[in-house]
């Protein structure tokens, strides 16, 4: 017998199953050998050590942005600015990775710290505008994504570009700046440890501190929080600072962990993916780990499928759209919850 308290878990599972079912339907329609293709999609990402490594590498940036967006959503801030900050902080970290000379311990620390702080400061702008004058944080953060992208691309093309590289990429990073690998045979880098620490810290912050409590209350009902004596404007600015810090750290870590040159000539999309991760995690820091791994798993699955079969990897964006639409759909399966509630009430009566 299902209980109402498991409803959210059941619902999330149902959404994932529906999404996978749609993936199978699309594969069956498109592929010449549907069963083999589905096998590749599901099995390849976990078949070898290298592939599992790919999944975890992909999950690292998703965890960063997923965590940042979770905190914002938790405070009921519809800010999608993680995208631009992720990108721009990557540029900032790259500049330091190229131009500083430090030892291999301090170099990444300094570059990542700079990227994170820049991220925090940039993120604070929509936060302050929202807290002080109630300017719509969604629109300002979306505009900032495009502004930061423009400035970042300008820096890449005019100041960082390596003319000898025959592509639109920056100069090489100093070897000292790059994050070291932690598992042989994979490209998993120390960023994994960093993000897991951040997730645990965010969890403790959200559930064990006064500020975390204020953040959650502001998210539930800003007016109520204000009447209870909380300084909601301060809370809103604080959550923007933290989220920007985390998103900026994500961009810096991703650049230093995975590449030896800065090479994003378009927004990498991790910020918006972060919204999907946060939704799957129900805005819960610890659940971000699982939902980022799941998203990374189906993405790597799609990549492998594109490489080994006749179905292009872009299929995954259709699946992602379905997941977002259903997971945030309050009414989806609500009738079932109501029925369960009714049954339990009757049983108790």
């Amino acid at each position, binding site marked *: 017998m299902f209980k109402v308290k498991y409803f959210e878990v059941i619902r999330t599972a149902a959404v994932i199953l529906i999404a996978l079912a749609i993936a199978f339907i699309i594969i069956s329609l*498109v592929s010449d050998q549907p069963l083999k293709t589905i096998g590749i999609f599901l099995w390849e990402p976990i078949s070898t050590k290298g592939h599992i490594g790919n999944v975890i590498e992909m999950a690292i940036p998703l965890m960063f942005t997923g965590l940042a967006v979770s905190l914002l959503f938790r405070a009921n801030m*519809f800010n*999608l600015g993680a995208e631009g900050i992720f990108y721009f902080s990557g540029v900032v970290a790259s500049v330091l990775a190229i131009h500083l000379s430090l030892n291999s311990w301090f170099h990444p620390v300094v570059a990542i710290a700079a990227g994170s702080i820049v991220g925090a400061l940039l993120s604070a702008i929509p936060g302050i*505008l929202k807290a*002080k*004058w*109630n*300017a*719509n944080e*969604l*629109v*300002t953060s*979306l*505009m*900032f994504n*495009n*502004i930061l*992208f*423009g*400035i970042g*691309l*300008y820096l890449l*093309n*005019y100041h960082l570009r390596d003319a000898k590289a025959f592509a639109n990429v920056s100069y090489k990073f100093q070897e000292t700046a790059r994050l070291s690998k932690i598992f042989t045979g994979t490209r998993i880098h120390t960023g994994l440890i960093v993000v897991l620490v951040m997730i645990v810290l965010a969890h403790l912050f959200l559930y064990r501190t006064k500020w975390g409590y204020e953040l959650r209350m502001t998210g539930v009902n800003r007016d109520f929080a204000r009447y209870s004596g909380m300084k909601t404007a301060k809370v809103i600015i604080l959550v923007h600072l933290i989220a920007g810090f985390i998103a900026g750290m994500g961009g810096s870590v991703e650049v230093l962990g995975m590449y030896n040159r800065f090479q994003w000539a*378009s927004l990498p999309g991790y910020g*918006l993916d972060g*919204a*999907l991760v946060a*939704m799957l995690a129900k805005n819960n820091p610890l659940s971000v780990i699982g939902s980022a791994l799941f998203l990374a798993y189906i993405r790597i699955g799609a990549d492998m499928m594109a490489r080994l079969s006749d179905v*292009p990897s*872009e*299929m*995954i*964006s*259709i699946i*992602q*759209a*379905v997941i*977002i*639409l*259903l997971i*945030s*759909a*309050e*009414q*989806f399966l609500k009738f079932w919850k109501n029925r369960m509630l009714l049954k339990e009430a009757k049983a108790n009566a």
Partner: protein
Amino acid sequence: MNSLLNVILTTDFAFSLLRVTTPILFAALGALISNRAGIINIGMEGIMLVSALAGVIVSAYTQSAWVGLLGAVLSGTLIAGVLAFFTLKFKTHIILGGVAINMFASGGTVFILYLLSGDKGSSTSLASKVLPSVQLPLIQDIPVLGPILSGHHILTYISILAVVVVYYLLNRTPLGLRIRSVGENPHAAQSVGVSVVRIQYTALLLSGFFASLGGAYMSMGYLSLFTRDMIAGRGWIAIAAESMGRSTTIGTALTSLLFGAADALSNALQVLKIPAELIATLPYVATVIGLVIYAVSETRKKNKKVKGPVVK
């Protein structure tokens, strides 16, 4: 500076201004209608992308540009319908719904393009059709104005006509009145018997309709094929134009023109060695500034109102 003026003060520049404004204007009008009904449709970019592809595919298979346009409009409106269904029926958050639409479109269009043409970059192998350009009789013979106003793509003229239509729709028709009332106060509208959900459905479908005209223009006028991510931020610029135009038809049309000018200028300003990447951010910077000024003045007004009765 002189060289810049030489570029700007030509009929060619004025002509290209109207040309680049067209898609922004269509999408901004779409954003305007849904915003007035109280729902922010941020899926503009995605709707335009889907309709641009649909126009190319349908016109290639039917060998008729007009049927292609119909296909583009139907598919764009359908996407808006899906968004409306999820947000209004299933109560998906409208912003997240918009994110989903954009995500779907950016990958889904490439997916379908690849299945049909075997190419992930562009639709060069599909023999798609282009909608015609129109020479305006009489006007084309007027010096200066003729070369600026005549010879445009048919959808460019329709976009100007659309401004009038949207203005009339919002301000002079019962539907427009209902859309505005739902946007301003849904509870009040409901209490006098307006079906909020139905009006919001209508508004979202209309926003999809206008956005898809913009999308069709991109692949069947501005360019003559579909390329990956060809909307390139125009949907966002349109949302920016709408919010800087303060959700009025005239304001939206004027800011669309302004942002179109920024787009057209980005080529001209390269003469002055100002990088195109930075110029491309101008519409967004302008919107943030516009939003802040508006928000500050609104907050002041509100504070005055709160203090008002106390002083009395």
